[in-house]
């Protein structure tokens, strides 16, 4: 994968929860890829979408803006948005922008899935 690219893989641990594995860079140019992944992850029964940021390599302010619009879309569908795998650096950004008040941040996938009601 070339620098600057974003790839998103989707897993379905259950019929109501999807995990999106983020690999690469999130910037304003990632909108199409991110929203496409959300559409694939979000089914009629989906209640929670868990973002795995352990492969996140770069994010600018445009990327944060995209996460905010993703959150709006998820809330519109009454879906919970959760996250794990953030480094200290990105966790601090989430806290600074107070996005962590709307997106639950967890230390591991198991904890995030438990919060989503799966485990």
């Amino acid at each position, binding site marked *: 994968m070339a620098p*600057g690219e974003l790839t998103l893989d989707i897993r379905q641990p259950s019929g109501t929860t999807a995990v999106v594995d983020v690999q690469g*860079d999130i910037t304003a140019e990632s909108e199409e890829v991110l929203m496409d992944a959300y559409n694939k992850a979000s089914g009629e029964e989906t209640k929670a979408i868990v973002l795995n940021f352990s492969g996140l390599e770069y994010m*600018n*302010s*445009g990327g944060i803006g995209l996460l905010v619009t993703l959150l*709006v879309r998820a809330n519109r569908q009454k879906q919970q948005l959760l996250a794990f795998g953030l480094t200290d650096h990105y966790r601090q950004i989430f806290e600074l922008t107070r996005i962590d008040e*709307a997106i639950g941040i967890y230390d591991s996938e198991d904890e995030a899935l438990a919060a989503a009601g799966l485990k």
Partner: protein
Amino acid sequence: MTEEQKPSAEEPVGEPGAPEVKVSRDAAFWAKPISELKLGHDIPAEAINLNVEGKRIAGMTGGFGKMWQKTYKVQLAGTSVSPTDVVKAWKENFARFWPKAGRFYGPLTSISPGDVALLNLSVGGPAKLSTGIFVLYADDTSFSFVNPEGHMFAGMITFSSGTEGDTTVAQVQALIRAGDPLYEMGMPMIHRKEDKFWTKTLENLAAHFGVSAKSDVQKVLVDRKRQWDQWRNVRKNAGIRTALHMVGAPFRAIAKPFKRKKTPVG
């Protein structure tokens, strides 16, 4: 815009033999964590310094009103200026490109992550609104501000430059909600003022490079739902606080000569 440039951040050199500490390529471009805002520079005596010091950042997912994404763009046709040159000049002259509707009291040097600036905005007649901004992010081709609690908007505004074909463009993009119900009621007027403000800012920026151009604006309603659980934000409304401060000015002036001066002990 074409894919934005991502300037590289240097990796730190670790001690020989020690495990390598991986630093994100974007680490240098983000502000460091803070719990509350502090003005780190002097301001002129005429500036109204309210609603910034000690305030928290208004969360990007906070705010009361509908969420809008507004994009203002100007084409710098006929110049060879690069996006990096545009943003460098913009950071160095940000206050100068600010239209006459307000004053921007920022650091004298260029805009950097973590900077805090004071805004005194004219809202009609002698009425002013004192608030501020915090520089959340800044790299070579963009910089972004977020606002303190009490500001008209909760959200983020990004100033950037890129290329479209052979033409360099400059852009202001706001992703915002009205901060509280009072601001939301005033949004039709606030939107009109914002549109005039940022189009004029971009025209001033273009003129700096010898380009006479009008900017265009695109608006997208991202979320038509209001966040009613945020109605209490009105307690921190910077407009109300500024108005009360201005109304109290004559009384403070009268009381000033009667304030007890501290006398040294001994």
